[in-house]
């Protein structure tokens, strides 16, 4: 895909100009000396690793936070936002990464919610939504319930929401994180449509290929400050990545196969139901051998969460068997499965992996309550737990002042490194890793990938669920695709392309390449 020609007149005042922005708050990477100039009618990408200060900057632009220093000008006029309402009044809209939609309301109701004064809630509002939807090729039915919409359509509802409120500058926070490749293409088509109508788009991402495909200009943030503004025709993804991290970018590559013929996990005919008795997972068969990483790809909500929870023992199987290292564990609880060597990196580390308000050494005990070195019989071994926490902090490069620091105080990447270190403790035979590098910076990502690879070489079996196709392709020995609760296809990561995976994930292609 060739980058679009830079649009917008060179002489027009910038749609947004941020000058010398600084924001300090304790414990969080702040912004300092941020200068960004966004020309009208362009797609301006803002890239940087997690914690580089992108979110803070966008919150400042959207009026959620006030800068300590610096100025914001919109279309040449200096402004000060006290709240997002001020920003909206100035024509700035934001599409959040996590959609803010009410499932049980229709598209129309979601769009007018909070903006009833603009066009009422009836026929005028409907006409306006239909106009916007038609103008940009969104194809949305105002009366459809949001709960029936797919992820891509929900995102379009979010975009309609900000357009409906009169936004000329639209901030999109990691808009492609939840989309499969085909949906990304559709989104980009929508964005180009918006751009051609004179809208200005601020595109926040850390997926560099996408940034290069869509952006007219790219501003790179590192450690809270802007380090460069470049155009896509002058840089490669690799150069961009180096600008972001200031060092060589890690890539997942699993190297030599270490797969053995010793079966560690065998799942047969697994079925998991929801409370109403509908199948969330059905007829799932899979085998993972020692030294093998089995990657599971799928659009979120197709059963991968349930698969992980069933394997870990947090959900009970309605039918089928789960055999771990030769023992049928289908009817065993999470604790027994963990005792027989299951490590678990949960999808949501803050909800399922950590006690945020407890010290790190106490978090070391979590999930290992019945095993040394953190316990001795029925008693906690505080000394043992502390010593082993020190070991994890050293071995996995967890940046913390000490083991008495609460988990909450650490950054996401460090929390995750600690979690990975803990779950690799006690010689696990099976690691169940759900989105192991989601929301962590590039440095932590490389460290986590390396830990998984190292454990795999030692004969660990890994069930890897991820939304990051590069991660899946780079780490897995085999890739399975989950679609509507069933395992739909088996792919060889050495030959598969993201496009093929995307097709299988959306059900567009029913064939099963070997």
């Amino acid at each position, binding site marked *: 895909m060739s980058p679009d020609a830079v649009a917008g007149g060179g002489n027009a005042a910038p749609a947004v100009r941020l000058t010398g922005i600084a924001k300090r708050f*304790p414990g969080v990477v702040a912004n300092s000396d941020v200068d960004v100039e966004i020309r009208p009618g362009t797609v301006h990408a803002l890239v940087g690793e997690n914690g580089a200060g992108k979110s803070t900057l966008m919150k400042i632009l959207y009026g959620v936070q006030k800068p300590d220093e610096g100025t914001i000008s919109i279309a040449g006029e200096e402004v000060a936002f006290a709240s997002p309402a001020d920003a909206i009044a100035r024509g700035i809209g934001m599409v959040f990464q996590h959609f803010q939609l009410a499932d049980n309301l229709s598209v129309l109701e979601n769009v007018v919610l909070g903006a009833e004064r603009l066009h009422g809630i009836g026929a005028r509002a409907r006409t306006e939504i239909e106009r916007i939807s038609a103008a940009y090729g969104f194809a949305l039915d105002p009366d459809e319930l949001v709960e029936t919409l797919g992820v891509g359509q929900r995102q379009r509802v979010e975009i309609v929401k900000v357009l409906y409120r009169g936004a000329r500058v639209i901030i999109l926070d990691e808009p492609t994180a939840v989309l499969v490749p085909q949906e990304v293409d559709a989104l980009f088509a929508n964005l180009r449509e918006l751009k051609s109508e004179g809208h200005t788009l601020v595109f926040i991402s850390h997926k560099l290929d996408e940034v290069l495909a869509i952006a007219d200009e790219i501003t790179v943030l590192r450690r809270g400050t802007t380090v460069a503004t470049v155009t896509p025709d002058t840089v490669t993804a690799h150069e961009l990545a180096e600008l972001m991290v200031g060092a060589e970018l890690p890539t997942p590559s699993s190297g030599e196969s270490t797969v053995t013929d010793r079966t560690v996990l065998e799942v047969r005919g697994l079925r998991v139901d929801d409370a109403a008795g509908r199948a969330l997972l059905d007829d799932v068969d899979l085998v993972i051998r020692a030294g093998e990483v089995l990657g599971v790809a799928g659009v979120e909500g197709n059963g991968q969460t349930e698969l992980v929870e069933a394997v870990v023992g947090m959900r009970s199987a309605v039918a089928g068997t789960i055999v771990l290292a030769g023992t049928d564990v289908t009817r065993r609880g999470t604790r027994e499965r963990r005792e027989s060597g299951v490590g678990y990196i949960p999808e949501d580390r803050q*909800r399922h992996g950590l006690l945020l308000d407890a010290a790190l050494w106490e978090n070391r*005990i979590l999930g290992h309550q019945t095993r040394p070195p953190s316990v001795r019989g029925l008693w906690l071994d505080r000394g043992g737990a502390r010593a082993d926490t020190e070991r994890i902090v050293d071995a996995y490069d967890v940046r913390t002042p000490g083991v008495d620091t609460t988990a909450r105080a650490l950054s996401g990447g460090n929390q995750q490194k600690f979690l990975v270190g803990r779950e690799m403790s006690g010689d696990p035979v099976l690691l169940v890793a759900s989105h192991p590098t989601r929301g962590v910076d590039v440095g932590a990502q490389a460290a986590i990938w390396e830990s998984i690879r190292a454990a795999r070489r030692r004969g660990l079996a890994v069930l890897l669920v991820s939304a990051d196709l590069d991660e899946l392709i780079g780490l897995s020995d085999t890739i399975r695709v989950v679609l509507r609760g069933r395992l739909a296809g088996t792919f060889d990561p050495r030959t598969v392309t993201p496009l093929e995976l995307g097709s299988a994930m959306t059900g567009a292609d029913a064939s099963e390449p070997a």
Partner: protein
Amino acid sequence: MTTVRRLMVGAAAPALAFVVAAAVTSVVLVAAGDSPADFWRVLLSAPDPRDYVAIANATAVLYLSGLAAAIGFRMNLFNIGVEGQYRVATFAGAVFAGQALLPGALNTAATILVAMAAGAAWAGIAALLRVLRGVSEVISTIMLNAIAVSLVAFLLQKVGRRQGETFRTDTIPESSWVPSFPLVPGESSQVYGLALLAVVAGVGFAVLLNRTRFGFDLRATGHSESAAVASGVNVRRMVVYTLLLSGAVAGLIGMPELFGGSHAYGSTIQTGIGFTGIAVALLGRNHPWGIAVAALIFGYLNQQASPLGVTADISTEIIAVTQGVVVLSVVIAYEVVRRYRVRAEQAEVARQLRRERGAQAVSP
């Protein structure tokens, strides 16, 4: 944060709460036309030796009650039924002890176990409702309080002896009484021997919570149920165990008085201790030492307030206002302090990272 600073920040919350409570109480007094000066003079006057004993007895009982509530609170289980569990347990204990099936101290020991079992059983009803039917323990324990009061009154008429207008259980044989011990030399009133149960229970609570696997599971579930489940904790089982334990400790509340004072269950039983225990646990932050301090404060306030009506012509009920405001403001103050701590700790982590980055920059 250094330990000293940590402690100071920790002490700031209750201190702040007491200042607010004092202010609110004074305002209420002024609004009601009473003299705050008289109130504070009576409240802050030095207790008599006799009062020291009364405060010690009240503190022990409130401590047990606070502990019973705190066990549930640490797991985010709100056992509002300590009062009911205490009534049922004390009655069951009194009936058992009055039978004198066992001689002397053996009878005493057995009675304590019976009372704990009765308290646990009464709490167990709420536990079963919760895990089998999903009934909130808040609702069920509140209702079980009402049922406990009526049930005990009914059974007392069945098994008790009429004594004037009221009923009471058979008096415990003197060989099973637990002697009191003097607190203040030369003072005739003495502290109940079984008040020491509070010390035993407090140590047990601290050890169980902080040193054992069970305690870790309990605290982990309180911190984050989802994380506890993912770590292999069987939360349903923990709910049952925790409520049983809470009820068992509630069963101890009546023992010091039963074996040291009343020697029977009758209409003179102290009411409301179970509810005060909830406030004591909140004030004490569900921490073994904190609950002790809170129980002492509540015991002191109750005792010092009793002469208010006589010497200052102020209704003693005002002390309930003070206690209520203390609890409310302490909950708020703790939250403020918690947020401050989180920020301070994050700042510390950030400082550390900056230092490391600085070091890296120097030696590339």
